[in-house]
């Protein structure tokens, strides 16, 4: 086919009707003229007409020839098949709705899930040359650790390795708004922070060199979302100020939309190191950096190791090193990655089951359409032509299913995003972008192959005569075997999913049953950050703690109020060395600061010695209370049976920028362990020190109420406002919610897998129902004969149910085998439940069997009501 005739040919495709008409006209004119000539030659009218036709040759053949030359025949066929496919779907709306619905569900769930997989795991980070972005750590024998100010400044000087090195430190501040102050999150960063990300501002500028040095003016950069919501996209934003913790900051720029809108932080301001922070003792910074172009991560590591060696004289942790990690790797934890793969696996399984169902529906339809195909074949359509026609029909179906699926996927994603947002890294952009659409298209093609190819091959197969001769009587044959096999596969796949879901739910239940070591009912918590401007000294902060508890205690409905740094289950901020005089190796413990009411509020019992008292305040001898884990460790490993009364040394972090200092403290008591790191983590070694002796700025109010905690909130707010109207309360959560949140990582994949397991089971049931219903229709005659010779309805019912049960049992066996094979995948996500937990697997099997029998009941019942007389008469 020559190229230059292509446009005309393609055009002809769409002008088909008109062109056909033209050819018809031309033929008519030709025949008339021929007839006229023949009449002139003396033939009779009848002879003339015959002669004209004879001389013309085969009219239809000529038209076909004409058409073939006129356009691209396969395309013309395609268009015809496409229309035909639409038509045949429209003639069978029940089939169309079910098939399109199944495909939409499968493809929708998959494209939504793929969007998450893509955003979190596949796509490069949404920054220029993301492979150059790294995080810098000090490495300890236990793992990564933050670094110190002076070491950070050493790193910053390695400009042959890095284009930019920046710290980032989250902070919560109170922002004046004119009305009630609000608590907002921001980041303190180095001036070249945005160079690390390669991000340019949308409005204004980011920080200039030197703006992170002492004495620089106070400036701040806003996130786009914050600018839009808080400042109504004010174009004159650069003329405005932001009052943070009572200090005005000049707004110098607004970031573009994108990743930084998904972060908690709404503002960024330069971090200016205080003289007190210039040390190598306080490991508080986790810098990020951009490698110089051309420098590999290995080169950077090697160079950093050399640098570490040269700093031996000033760094006292001799066994620590420096390390460089890709930024991307640290954004996604193992649990999240596994959970996402698991959920994706579940939706893929659902798609497979949906495909199996659709393929089955098509096969069923195929048996009824066999005659149509045979007739078409008899009229001269080639086998390949028939296959193409059937495939085109499948294609129409998949296309409609795919389109509906993409729409459903967008809806799902829209609904899911707020639920999963907090679990995903801020760089993950969840959207139905071109990549997701590409995935959906690929899924549609895969579905087309899975659902279309086999049925169309089968349907167009089969010797002509044999099909035409075969009446629809009792012909189960090989196609029924194929359909049964497909249903068994569906059952097996759903059993795998249900087993997974059952295990995950059991694990979640176990997790939630874990005793957190604290009483969580009627406890409400909230965050407060004491700004350095209003609370410059430890003494001022200590005074605040005392006042706030006194005031809150007087609020009606409050049973007990307390202040602490951090909450149960949310981790302990500080990890410090506890030094025992008789032991060489210091002991690393989590260091938690609480006031004297904390143990009482959360009802943590004192096991030995005493708890913290009101008298443990500044000026009094410093004390520490340890938990049972520390006591156990001391007695087991170090042979110290009764630690109460002993003096130990602890590195205690200072207030604000004040560096940590070694303090000699006395162990005064042992308390029962609370779960600090989450319900799934074993109790940690925790030492509690009185807040009044070592005040901290970021604190929590922990309040036990007499009735529903939410009811007391207005009065609690008012009490705090009376002390300091500029303080904003943030993160208001009951302890129940804190607990819920701490198991979110386990809850989300569990519910996703659970939901899809239900969908899968229903689909498998639908498949089972479809096959049995079809079989019953096909076997009416056989059933009729059986009943005529004495089988009871009960026998027939049992016969059909037996058939269903045999499919179910084979499916269950296959599913269990699959579940065994997949234990490795699940194991790491399960908590105190074996991946082969017999009870969970049994529940899964029973559920599937019940659903399957319910699905089989309807056709079985129909079969049992077959009236032998009617059937036999019908078939004559």
């Amino acid at each position, binding site marked *: 086919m*020559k190229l*230059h*005739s292509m446009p*005309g*040919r393609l055009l002809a495709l769409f002008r088909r009707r008109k062109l056909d008409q*033209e*050819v018809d*006209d*031309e*033929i*008519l*004119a*030709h025949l*008339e*003229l*021929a007839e*006229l*000539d023949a009449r002139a030659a003396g033939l009779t009218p009848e002879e003339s007409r015959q002669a004209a036709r*004879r*001389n*013309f*040759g*085969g*009219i239809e*053949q*000529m038209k076909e*020839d*004409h058409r*073939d*030359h*006129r356009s691209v025949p396969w395309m013309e066929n395609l268009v015809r098949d496409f229309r035909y496919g639409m038509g045949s779907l429209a003639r069978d709306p029940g089939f169309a709705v079910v098939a399109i619905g199944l495909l939409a569900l499968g493809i929708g769930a998959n494209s939504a899930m793929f969007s998450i997989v893509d955003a979190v795991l596949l796509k490069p980070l949404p920054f220029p040359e993301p492979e150059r972005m790294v995080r810098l750590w000090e490495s300890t024998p236990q793992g990564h650790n933050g670094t110190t100010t002076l070491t950070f400044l050493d790193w910053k000087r390695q400009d042959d390795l890095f284009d930019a090195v920046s710290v980032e430190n989250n902070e919560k501040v109170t922002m004046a708004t004119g009305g009630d102050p609000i608590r907002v999150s921001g980041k303190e960063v180095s001036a070249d922070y945005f160079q690390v990300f390669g991000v340019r501002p949308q409005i204004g500028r980011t920080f200039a060199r030197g703006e992170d040095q002492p004495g620089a003016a106070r400036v701040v950069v806003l996130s786009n979302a914050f600018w839009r919501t808080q400042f109504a996209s004010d174009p004159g934003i650069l003329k405005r100020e932001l009052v943070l913790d009572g200090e005005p900051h000049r707004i110098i720029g607004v970031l573009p939309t994108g990743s930084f809108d998904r972060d908690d932080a709404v503002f960024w301001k330069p971090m200016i190191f205080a003289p007190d922070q210039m040390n190598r003792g306080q490991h508080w910074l986790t810098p990020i950096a951009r490698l110089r172009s051309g420098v590999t991560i290995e080169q950077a590591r090697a160079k950093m190791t050399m640098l570490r060696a040269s700093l031996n004289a000033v760094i006292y942790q001799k066994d620590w090193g420096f390390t460089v990690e890709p930024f991307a790797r640290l954004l996604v934890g193992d649990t999240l990655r596994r959970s996402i793969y698991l959920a994706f696996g579940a939706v893929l399984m659902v798609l497979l089951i949906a495909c199996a169902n659709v393929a089955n529906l098509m096969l069923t339809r195929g048996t009824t359409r066999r005659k149509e195909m045979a007739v078409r074949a008899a009229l001269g359509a080639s086998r390949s032509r028939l296959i193409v026609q059937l495939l085109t029909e499948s294609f129409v179906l998949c296309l409609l299913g795919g389109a509906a699926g993409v729409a459903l996927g967008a809806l799902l994603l829209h609904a899911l995003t707020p639920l999963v947002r907090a679990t995903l890294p801020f760089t993950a952009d969840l959207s139905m972008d071109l990549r997701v659409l590409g995935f959906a298209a690929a899924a549609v093609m895969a579905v087309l192959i899975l659902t279309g190819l086999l049925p169309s091959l089968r349907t167009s197969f089969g010797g002509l005569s044999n099909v035409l001769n075969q009446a629809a009587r009792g012909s189960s044959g090989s196609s029924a075997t194929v359909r049964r096999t497909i249903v068994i596969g569906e059952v097996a796949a759903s059993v795998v999913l249900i087993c997974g879901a059952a295990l995950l739910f059991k694990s979640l239940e176990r997790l939630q049953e874990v005793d957190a070591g604290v009483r969580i009912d009627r406890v409400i918590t909230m965050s407060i950050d004491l700004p350095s401007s209003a609370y410059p000294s430890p003494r001022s902060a200590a005074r605040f703690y005392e006042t706030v508890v006194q005031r809150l205690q007087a609020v009606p409905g409050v049973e007990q109020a307390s202040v602490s740094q951090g909450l149960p289950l949310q981790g302990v901020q500080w990890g410090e060395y506890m030094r025992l005089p008789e032991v060489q190796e210091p002991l690393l413990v989590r260091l938690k600061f609480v006031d004297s009411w904390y143990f009482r509020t959360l009802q943590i019992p004192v096991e030995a010695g005493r708890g913290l008292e009101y008298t443990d305040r500044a000026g009094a001898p410093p004390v520490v209370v340890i938990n049972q884990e520390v006591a156990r460790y001391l007695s087991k490993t170090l042979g110290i049976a009764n630690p109460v009364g002993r003096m130990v040394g602890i590195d205690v972090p200072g207030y604000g920028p004040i560096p940590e200092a070694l303090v000699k403290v006395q162990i005064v008591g042992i308390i029962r362990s609370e779960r600090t790191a989450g319900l799934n983590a074993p109790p940690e070694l925790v030492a509690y020190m009185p807040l009044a002796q070592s005040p901290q700025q970021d604190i929590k109010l922990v309040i036990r109420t007499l009735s529903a905690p939410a009811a007391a909130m207005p009065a609690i707010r008012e009490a705090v406002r009376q002390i300091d109207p500029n303080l904003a309360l943030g993160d208001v959560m009951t302890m129940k919610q804190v607990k819920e949140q701490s198991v979110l990582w386990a809850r989300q994949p569990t519910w996703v897998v659970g939901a899809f397991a239900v969908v899968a089971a229903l689909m498998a049931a639908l498949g089972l129902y479809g096959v049995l219903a079809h079989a019953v229709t096909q076997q009416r005659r056989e059933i009729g004969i059986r009943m005529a010779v004495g089988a009871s309805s009960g026998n027939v019912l049992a016969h059909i149910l037996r058939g269903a049960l045999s499919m179910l049992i084979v499916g269950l066996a296959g599913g269990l085998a699959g579940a065994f094979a997949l234990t490795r995948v699940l194991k790491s996500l399960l908590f105190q439940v074996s991946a082969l937990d017999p009870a969970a697997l049994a529940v899964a099997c029973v559920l599937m069997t019940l659903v399957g029998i319910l699905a089989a009941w309807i056709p079985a019942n129909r079969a049992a009501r077959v009236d032998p007389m009617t059937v036999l008469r019908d078939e004559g």
Partner: protein
Amino acid sequence: MSKEKADVPYGTLDLLILKTLATLGPMHGYRIARRIEQVAENLVRLNQGSIYPALMRLEQQGWIRTQWGISETKRKVKFYSLTKAGLKQLSIEIASWERATALVARFLEAES
């Protein structure tokens, strides 16, 4: 129609049509078919219908063009005429035909 008549030699129908149009100017499909039959004087058998796909092929190549006209039976029909490109194509086809027949003729002489 007697048995000994041959079909139009493969690939020559285009040449016959082009030559007809070059000699006699614009005409409609039936006239072209009749003209070929007359010149051939019953030497070949022509299915008159087969010229229409050929005409379309030629039109797609840009060698002939069509205009609407009125037939002797007062019907709207297409009149085909040669384009410049068609005229050039005709000379090419004639040349290649002559080369082909000369070649075949030489072979046949050599054989005998």
